[in-house]
């Protein structure tokens, strides 16, 4: 039963107040994009064992979408941050690297 802090309203919300929204920082490919790009955008997922960047919505709450960095093996939450970003904040990445020295880093498999 996860707890994630909503960066918009500051509530340490429990899972039942939230809705999970899948992998974060996907690049949308629209008309004119290649088949591969579109398939990657729609379907290909990192699904890593370890550090995962994902989207959540504070559905039973302020209604805002936000991002979270979470470990899929231990469920440790490294941090939550704004949804209006194209990649995770540098300080968060640094903090994760500190805790997980052998983490290949953000986007390593992209």
């Amino acid at each position, binding site marked *: *039963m*996860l707890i994630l802090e909503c960066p918009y309203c500051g509530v340490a919300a429990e899972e*039942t107040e939230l809705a*999970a929204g899948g992998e974060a920082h996907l690049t949308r490919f629209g008309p004119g994009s290649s088949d591969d790009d579109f*398939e990657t955008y729609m379907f290909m997922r*990192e699904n890593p*064992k370890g550090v995962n960047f*994902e989207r959540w919505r504070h559905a039973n709450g302020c209604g805002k979408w936000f991002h979270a960095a*979470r470990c*899929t093996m231990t469920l440790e939450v490294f941090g939550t941050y704004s949804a209006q970003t194209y990649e995770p904040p540098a300080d968060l990445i640094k903090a994760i690297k500190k805790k997980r020295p052998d983490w290949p880093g953000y986007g390593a498999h992209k």
Partner: protein
Amino acid sequence: MRRYSAFAIAREAARYHQGWERAWAAPEPKKKYDVIIVGAGGHGLATAFYLGKNFGITNVAIIEKGWLGGGNTGRNTTIIRSNYLQDPSAAIYEKARSLYETMSQDLNYNVMFSPRGVMMLAQTESEIRGYQRTAHANAYQGVSTEFISPQRVKELCPIMNIDGPRYPVLGALWQPRGGTARHDAVAWGYARACSDMGMDIIQKCEVTGVRSEGGKVVGVDTSKGAIDCNKLAVVVAGHSSDLAQMAGFRLPMESVALQALVSEPIKPCMDVVVMANTVHGYMSQSDKGEMVIGGGTDAFNNYTQRGSFHHIEETVRALVETFPMVSRLKMLRQWGGIVDVTGDRSPIITKTPVQNMFINAGWGTGGFKAIPGSGWAMAELVAKGEPGPLSAEFGMNRFIEGRFIDESVAAGVAH
């Protein structure tokens, strides 16, 4: 292999059962195999079995990180049915179901297939339409189902409350030859048969890398050293993305936790399998007397075999409403498994970017019922290098083409 029978038991009883031989051997890995199968779950073992039985390929190793049958094969609610809507699904699940019918005899291991009947309740108008549509499709797919009345539902399952008040039962899609089987026995029976064919089942051996040369797979690195192979079949349920990453490609897939629970055992009170999708609950009674209950999946990626409690709550709430007697039963045990779910929630049985490497994954919450059919189709793909009719539609190219196999279509929303 000494055959199992009542006579064998009588013989052994006379000597305090000291004479039973191992069900399967515990060999050290050889240097090289024709085929290495990663994953000794039901699907992996079935793949091996049909490689041997249908194609005479027996120089095979089945490599398992933990203990055989220890993944989702040993964690599911053992429902077997083939009342699917789309042609490709109906074909492979019905193939699987028909193989279950004779599995005990084929393996000389009693997997306790119990065709007690599976019903899926219709509790909304759109469910009625969805299941009537499925019944029509099944009639021409060689799947024997029928849409039955609420009264018939009550006859088949007297402990059910069909009158609502909230969601009165309006009918059900009924597959009389669907049912359950003893999940562990399926893995054990296949393992025993594979071992008997001379295949090596190597447990507690984790794959740490996939080795390829010139885009062609040549072997795997494992915790027990490197092992060479001509062909590699990856059949590892929730961990498929991980193996794919080792080989350098990604899958249209995410891994989530699926939960289940059982009640304390009680005397027989339910002779069918019931699935109620509107309220999200399904239940059957095991031969030991436990009510076996399937829960929901989490919506977030998770590799811990632990799910979130509120899914258990939602499921139990639904069952108390549908089966009032559940209210005064007790939950004995809850657990979770990791399932991988694809973009259209249908499986992938396919070649990969790496030559001679094949993958069978994405069975989501429906894996157990498919085991023999999945193994049959995967064996054909591995042996011939090209998909046969059963797996032809389950390739990965369907996502680029937009050709989905979507079984959730009955869940439409009406005005």
